[in-house]
Structures are given as structure tokens and as C-alpha cells.
């Protein structure tokens, strides 16, 4: 476990680079000089107290918000809008209430104009991956919060993008479901060769699921520390991680770093 002030990943070429990113909302400075690289197949958490701009950063990477200055590059090319290389999982699920689980999961493909049979086949596959087989014809209002987020995840997986952007995806579900979700996320990233950028305000969650944690400090949001963890990729048993001394030490250490901002 090593701490590097500026993130560099020399092993593989980064898919996403964030360079000199600033963001202002009128007078308020939301992000100041953020420089990050996200390597292929890694899960990076953006962690920090509320007001640190972590969701803003994620939405700029997604192309949903314009930055004030600086650049976001995907495979070396600057981007300013959403693209098929990045899929998003929303905090409040963002499901169509009038559409079935199947149509919701296939919605990204539907917007791309894929024929019905093909997109539904792909969606069914992802519905199975997230464990919702049998609920294809249910409506979101008939599902629990956790199940709704699984639909949101299936929709993001179905478009087969390289990068999965997740904005506090488990914050609106109850604690038990959340734990199960975290375990499933570990399994998912072992199986899928995707790059994950994951926003959370839970230290335990970040340490549990990530390879790397970017700590952001609030007002203005800056990268205060980057912590590499090789927890998830070491192939430890998901049940063991939460009792692992290294895990507990990392949680403790991050808490000490963040404590200053809370008080």
C-alpha cells in the first residue's frame, strides 16, 4: 500500500485523463486543478465529504456538465459531451416509471436505434447478470430500491461501454442490500474487464470495492490524496475483507485524513 500525491498509472495506458480541471458555479469554486488518470480495468473511488465536488467531477467526466477550464480526455481525445464509451449509473436510479424492467434495461440500446429483438436479447443477458431474471415485465414501482438500482446497472452494462461511471449508486438503498451490492460489484469487476469510477461518501464502501481511492477535500474540491489499495484485485474472499487488518487500517487512516474537514 503506497500513497502517491499525483495519480500515475504506469502499468497500462489510461483510458480517461483529467487534466487541469477547474469548475466554477458563478462565484463558487467547485473544483480546483484536478489532475487524474484512470487506467483500464481499475475501480477508482472518488471519496470525500459532501461539498467536495465528487459528483461534479464525475458528471464532468460523463460530459453532463461543462468544465470551466481544463480537459477530460478519453483515449487521448478531449471530450465535452456524453459518448458511447461511458455509461452512467444514477444515484436515484433514473428509471422510466412507465416502462418495464426489460425496456428500461434496453433503453440505452433503444436510443441507439438497435432493433427490438437484438436489444432485448442483450438486455435479458444483463438482467440475468444483475440477478433480476423473472422480473423482466415488472414496472419499477413494483421493485424495491435495491432492485431498481440493479435495473440501472443492467442498463449501463447493456450498452457495453468501456467505462462505468457510478454516482453514489448504493446510497439510496438499505444497509443490507448495500452490502450485498458491494459484494456483487466485486464479483462484477472481476468478471467484466471494465473501468469503474465510483463516487461515494462511505469510507468503508470505498475501501471495500476499490483499487484506488481519490480523496477530495472540500471548498474548493481538490485532490488531497490518492491511496492505492490492492484489496479487490488480490482475489481475497469478499467475506474476509471486512475483517482484514489491512482493510481496517486503511479505513482508519482515511478517517484521520477526512476528519479535519468534518470538524
Amino acid at each position, binding site marked *: 500500500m503506497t500513497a502517491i500525491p499525483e495519480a500515475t498509472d504506469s502499468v497500462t495506458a489510461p483510458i480517461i485523463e483529467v487534466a487541469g480541471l477547474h469548475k466554477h458555479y458563478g462565484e463558487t469554486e467547485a473544483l480546483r486543478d484536478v489532475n487524474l488518470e484512470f487506467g483500464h480495468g481499475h475501480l477508482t473511488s472518488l471519496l470525500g465529504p459532501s461539498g467536495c465536488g465528487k459528483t461534479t467531477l464525475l458528471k464532468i467526466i460523463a460530459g453532463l456538465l461543462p468544465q470551466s477550464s481544463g480537459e477530460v480526455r478519453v483515449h487521448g481525445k478531449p471530450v465535452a459531451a456524453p459518448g458511447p464509451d461511458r*455509461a452512467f449509473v444514477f444515484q*436515484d436510479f*433514473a428509471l422510466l416509471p412507465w416502462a418495464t424492467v426489460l425496456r428500461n434495461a434496453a433503453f440505452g440500446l433503444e436510443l441507439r436505434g438497435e432493433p427490438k429483438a437484438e436489444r432485448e436479447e442483450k438486455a435479458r443477458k444483463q438482467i440475468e447478470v444483475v440477478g433480476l431474471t423473472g422480473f423482466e415485465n415488472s414496472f419499477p414501482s413494483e421493485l424495491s430500491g435495491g432492485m431498481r438500482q440493479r435495473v440501472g446497472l443492467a442498463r449501463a452494462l447493456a450498452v457495453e461501454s468501456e467505462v462505468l461511471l457510478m454516482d453514489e449508486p448504493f446510497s439510496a438503498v438499505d444497509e443490507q442490500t448495500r452490502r450485498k451490492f458491494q459484494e456483487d460489484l466485486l464479483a462484477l469487476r472481476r468478471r467484466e474487464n471494465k473501468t469503474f469510477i465510483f463516487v461515494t461518501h462511505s469510507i468503508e464502501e470505498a475501501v471495500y470495492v476499490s483499487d484506488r481511492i481519490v480523496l477530495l477535500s472540500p471548498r474548493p474540491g481538490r485532490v488531497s490524496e490518492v491511496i492505492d489499495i490492492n484489496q479487490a484485485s488480490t482475489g481475497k474472499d469478499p467475506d474476509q475483507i471486512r475483517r482484514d487488518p489491512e482493510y481496517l487500517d486503511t479505513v482508519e487512516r482515511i478517517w484521520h485524513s477526512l476528519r479535519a474537514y468534518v470538524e
Partner: protein
Amino acid sequence: MIIYGYRIPMMASLLIWAVVWEFIGRFELVLLFPPLTHVLVAGVEVVNHSQFFSAVWITVQCFLQGFGLAVAVGIPLGMLMGMVPAADRLLSMWVSIFISTPLTPLVPVFMILFGLGEATVIVTVFMFAVWIIVLDTRAGVHDVPPSLLEMSRCFGASRWQTLRHIVSLSALPEILAGLRLGVIRGVKGAVIGQLLVSVIGIGALFKFYSQNFLMEHFWALVLMLFVAALGTAGIIEALERRVQYYAGDRG
């Protein structure tokens, strides 16, 4: 309604008012109110009047044309105002003015512009109905959850796709509420327009009955209009409930 532990059906209150009306009529307590039973009998005569069906037909035609126009203009205009802030700033003042001022004084102006005929009635129906449709559509578009809009952008939706797949469906409950209120206002417009033009449709009948002091016939006609307006609104309300079921939970 529950009285002394007995469940009284909703229609019962209607029955009570019918009895009160009959009572007032029988004892001639208020001038102009004949007993309800006489009104109902007169209703048969009204329906059998040689001009009744042509009057109803003209009214329905004027209403449908005026209301159709109001829907065709109101929904796109409301969507435009809901989605484009500049359009909203430009138009919202006019919508507020037209929705809050009584439009009846404008009908004589329409008569000058459109003549003493159906065109004036159509325009009156349109002016009565369109603004609430605009306002409700706009409110519905404003209430589309921002995350749904972000989601559609994220998955590469064009503006048109967002409008078709997200905005129009998400705003549907409000749009239907606007249509329901628009129907009621439109019926008002049809009647007021015809009363003021007073040479065509139901308006001519109303004028004929009131000038000849045929109050029984007059009230029979009023009751029929009442039932027609509420019935149409009721159909839209039923549709609204079905839509609410699908659009009800907004995540």
C-alpha cells in the same frame, strides 16, 4: 359519507338536492325555479324540439374544433415554454394575463373580427381552453425529473428522442389534467360564445326559452349541458387515473 355508522353512497347527496329543488319548486319559494319533475318533463320537450339536434350538433362541432385547436396549439406551446427559458420569459406574461382575466368581455371583439357565426364560437372555445393547457403542460415539463433528462443525454439521446421518450411521457399526467380543465372551460366558452352570438346553436335555444319565460325548458337545457360537460371531463379523468398508474412513481 358515513352517517350514524351507515354508509351513504355519493349519489345520495345528489338525491337530497333533487328533493330540495322539488320542494322549492312545489311551494314556489323562489321565482324562476319550477319543480324538478316539471323540468324533467320539459326536458323531453326540449329534446323533441325541431331545432334541438341541429343546435347540439353545431355546439358539438364548435366545441370540438375550438378544443382541438386549443390542444394542437396548447401542448406544443407549453412544451416550448417548459423547455426553452427564453420562450418562457417571452410568453409567460401573456399566458398569465389570459388565464386570470375573464375572457367574456372579449367575445364581442371576436364577433367583430370573426362575424356572427360559428367562427366566433370556435375562437371563444379556443381562448377559454388553451391557456390552462399551456400552463399545465409547461408545469409538467418543468417537473420532469432532472436525472431522467441526464440519463437520456448520457445514453446519447437526441433532443427529439428526449422529447418523445422522456418529456412527453413524464409530463403526461399534467397534460391530461390540463386537458380535463380545458374541456370544462371549453364548454363554458361554447355556451358563452353562443349566448352572446345568440343566433346559433344552444345559445339560440337558451335565448328562445328565457325570452319566452319557459323556465322549465331553460333549466332542462342547463342540466343537459351540465351532464355533458361533467361526462366529458369524467372520461378524461378516468384516462388520467390509468396514466397515473404508470407515471405515478417518479423515482
